[in-house]
């Protein structure tokens, strides 16, 4: 167990270091550290390099961390809420709503800076519709949540395709495609602010309510018998999950897979109480996004590869390996 935790920490440090050092311009770890230690460049000579770290690499690194934390914790909450290991953040309709909002924003040629906000709002609206549809007298009906999420996603997906096929310009289609494929290229400090507030709030709620999460894994009936206000706990946790996922989507577009895999890997590798698992889940999510983003900007030879696609390519085989090794257990 200790070895696994140390290995995870090692991967985190390695991922962060590589993300700061590698790219079109190469830094040694010492140079990167030096630039980080001095927010204002001391000489003209290193000002350019300094700017690369402070204006490009660091915000991108922090956004990768944020996306990793937000998606994985959101997935963790939803898997516990639905008691289903296949649940992922996008089942709540967040992704499809956000995707549709992005498509609409591009179609109506809104300012590029407005897209994160549009994505966030679109995600919130869609997941609110899904959540309202899955209301039941005793709280949330998980089955209806999953079903209405799938239904709404199909409708939004259809609209996105309609917009894509009727798009007047190729550039617009391409821009939209890159948002839908997910990626964090060219993100700046200004996009980090709001999203990090939502992520911090969601993570805090999840940590504070870890006992309630554990009670809910017993099923709504047993949880209520043990004195949990099931409906209230479900609504608070669902809101946290939606905020987290909405925050991620608003800065990264539709990055899949992390929310599904990170909680799963964490459960397999770290049999511990929910708080430890939450932290491990978040760390695994961060590691996944860091390495995938690294691959996205270094393997593409001048062109960025879509982050979501790379995540599936790297995470997928690992996930399948884990599933195969679990034969016979309660999967």
């Amino acid at each position, binding site marked *: 167990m200790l070895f696994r935790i140390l290995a995870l920490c090692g991967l985190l440090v390695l991922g962060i270091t590589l993300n700061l050092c590698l790219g079109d311009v190469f830094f040694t770890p010492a140079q990167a550290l030096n630039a980080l230690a001095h927010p204002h460049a001391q000489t003209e000579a290193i000002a350019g390099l300094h700017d690369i770290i402070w204006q490009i690499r660091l915000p991108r690194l922090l956004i990768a961390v944020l996306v990793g934390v937000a998606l994985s914790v959101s997935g963790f909450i939803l898997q516990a809420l639905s008691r289903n290991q296949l649940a992922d953040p996008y089942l709540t309709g967040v992704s499809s709503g956000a995707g549709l909002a992005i498509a609409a924003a591009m179609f109506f040629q809104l300012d590029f800076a407005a897209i994160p906000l549009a994505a966030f709002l679109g995600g919130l609206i869609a997941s609110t519709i899904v959540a309202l549809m899955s209301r039941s007298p005793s709280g949330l009906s998980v089955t209806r949540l999953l079903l209405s999420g799938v239904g709404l996603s199909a409708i939004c997906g259809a609209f996105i395709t309609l917009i894509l096929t009727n798009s007047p310009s190729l550039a617009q289609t391409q821009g939209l495609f890159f948002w839908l494929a997910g990626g964090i290229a060219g993100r700046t400090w200004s996009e980090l602010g709001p999203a990090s507030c939502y992520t911090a709030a969601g993570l805090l709620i999840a940590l504070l309510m870890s006992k309630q999460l554990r009670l809910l*894994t017993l099923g709504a009936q047993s949880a209520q018998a043990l004195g949990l206000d099931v409906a209230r706990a479900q609504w608070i946790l669902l809101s946290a999950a939606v905020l987290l996922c909405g925050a991620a989507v608003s800065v990264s577009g539709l990055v899949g897979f992390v929310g599904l895999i990170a909680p799963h890997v964490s459960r397999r590798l770290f049999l511990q109480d929910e708080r430890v698992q939450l932290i491990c889940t978040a760390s695994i999510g961060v590691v996944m996004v860091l390495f995938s983003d690294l691959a996205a900007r270094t393997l593409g030879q001048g062109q960025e590869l879509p982050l979501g696609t790379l995540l599936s390519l790297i995470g997928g085989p690992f996930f399948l390996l884990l599933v195969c090794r679990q034969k016979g257990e309660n999967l």
Partner: protein
Amino acid sequence: MNSEQLIAENLTVGFGKEPVISGVNIVLAAGQIVVLVGPNGAGKSTLVKTLARQLTPISGTVMLNGTAIWQMTPAKFASAVAYVPQSLEPAQQLTVEEIVMLGRNPHQPWWQWYGSEKDKEAVERALNATHMASHRKKYLSQLSGGERQRASIATALAQEPSFMLLDEPTSHLDFRHQLDLVSLLKQLKANGIGCLIVLHDLNLIARLADTIVLLRSGDQRTGTVAMVGAPDSVLTRDNLLSVFDVDLQIFKDPVSGELFYNPTHRQP
């Protein structure tokens, strides 16, 4: 002896607007064992779920010490009334000890995660009372049906309630653990805890019950209460024949004087 009571008044319960059982009056007092008996589909489990605050009644009320249970918070209710469902859903990755500790939830503030000394003592007592102490580190998914049932009872005991509602608590237990449960229930009764139990085994019922509520599945499938009373007045050949359509022999053990019930054949 305190005067705590869980009372069902003129209760009609069911799913949606469809009544499953109607016109139920039950008084469960401290230190009393009330047993619900009746054929499949008479509404026993639905009734227990309603008393456990899991279902809203169609009409009528359930009062706990003079307060309608729907006006209490879930935690307040759960600190006084524990519910043991027919089967515990197998949760992922929780050990017996962790599940039983969740029984302390109604006594803890919402943010408290780790059990206090008092919580740990209650968990220890519950594990010992159900002979689950040696299984404490096992995951629920590794347990047999009977062990899972005992873990569920242990969780309810850790709640340290005044009343316990048990839905067929012996259904997965071998006869040794059935006997253990009978003595546990008698112990709870001696400690002033009121128990409402759904049971099918007439011989167990006769040894346990202070009061028997005999249910009948009525016309249009809505159940009713056929009779309420002490075991020897309710568990008669005629009553059981009329509710279950089954004839039985009842004989007395010459040594202990206890009655034995032997269902013989079904009446057409």
